[in-house]
């Protein structure tokens, strides 16, 4: 599903900030394919920030698709928890509204990875739109893309392709090195 040209770009670059525009139809398969490339093919450890599916569900899906979970630190901002909760594999933030905690968790998780090459997978921008004003999200994404460069990671920000977030995507494109149109 992911074009050969995109795969080649992802393989050739050691660090980048990519915006992946995904159609709602192929959303799950595309995400899985991207993670497979990063974890199974490139053997890169990284951080997966989920605002869409709870960690429990993701873990099951990853296991079914033979994705190596042990190379991933999960940050789950969608499972409802009153306070922060942590297991060995995952940090539960409690709500996508807590952008400060998400930012701190990402920073700590990325810096905890003992490898020069690492990835950050942000799933997804579209979910943030449900909880925040577009202006707040634009600021957060600018912060995130700047941080991704500072961390020298392979950064992928997932967004659903829809009319609702077109303006935001246009803004975001200028902060990113690659735009992967994975429809």
């Amino acid at each position: 599903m992911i074009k050969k040209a995109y795969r080649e770009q992802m393989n050739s670059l050691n660090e980048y900030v990519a915006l992946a525009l995904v159609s709602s139809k192929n959303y799950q398969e595309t995400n899985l394919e991207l993670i497979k490339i990063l974890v199974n093919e490139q053997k890169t450890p990284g951080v997966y920030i989920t605002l869409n599916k709870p960690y429990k569900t993701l873990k099951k899906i990853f296991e079914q698709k033979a994705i190596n979970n042990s190379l991933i630190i999960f940050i789950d901002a969608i499972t409802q928890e009153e306070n922060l909760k942590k297991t060995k594999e995952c940090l539960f933030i409690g709500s996508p509204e807590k952008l400060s905690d998400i930012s701190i968790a990402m920073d700590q998780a990325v810096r905890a990875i003992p490898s020069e090459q690492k990835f950050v997978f942000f799933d997804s921008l579209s979910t943030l739109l449900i909880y925040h004003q577009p202006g707040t999200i634009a600021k957060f994404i600018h912060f995130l893309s700047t941080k991704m460069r500072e961390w020298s990671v392979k950064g992928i920000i997932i967004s659903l392709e829809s009319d609702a977030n077109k303006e935001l995507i246009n803004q975001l494109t200028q902060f990113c090195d690659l735009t992967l149109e994975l429809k």
Partner: protein
Amino acid sequence: MNKAIFMIIELIAIVLGILAIIKFVSDKEILVGFISLSFGVLAIIWSFIALNSLSKGTSSRDYVMFFLIGMVFLFLFSLWHVLVRINKWESRLIYPEYIFISIAYLIFVMASFRVYKFSKEFGFKEKTKEIRKQLKK
């Protein structure tokens, strides 16, 4: 460029402020008290700005909140201390000073406990070991 100019202006203002305090206040203890108070005000302002920038209900905001309250009590302690010195207060009027500093310490203990919990929540030591093992395979 603009930022650098602002920083230089701020620095000059701070130095001039300190020099003005030194010129007008002869008692050394009161002098140190005024300088401490001006730094206290700055610390409170920055903490307050930080508090308003952080998302509600987050651990970082909780910590800043405790820190800010602690700073306020520390400020009150310094303020009362300066007032005692200026007005040469005695006996019972000295006690609030001890109350303010005791509360400040108590709140800083609570803030430290928040930081301790914060480090537990956000630390990924165990996972680091696991990833290292996996990468060696």
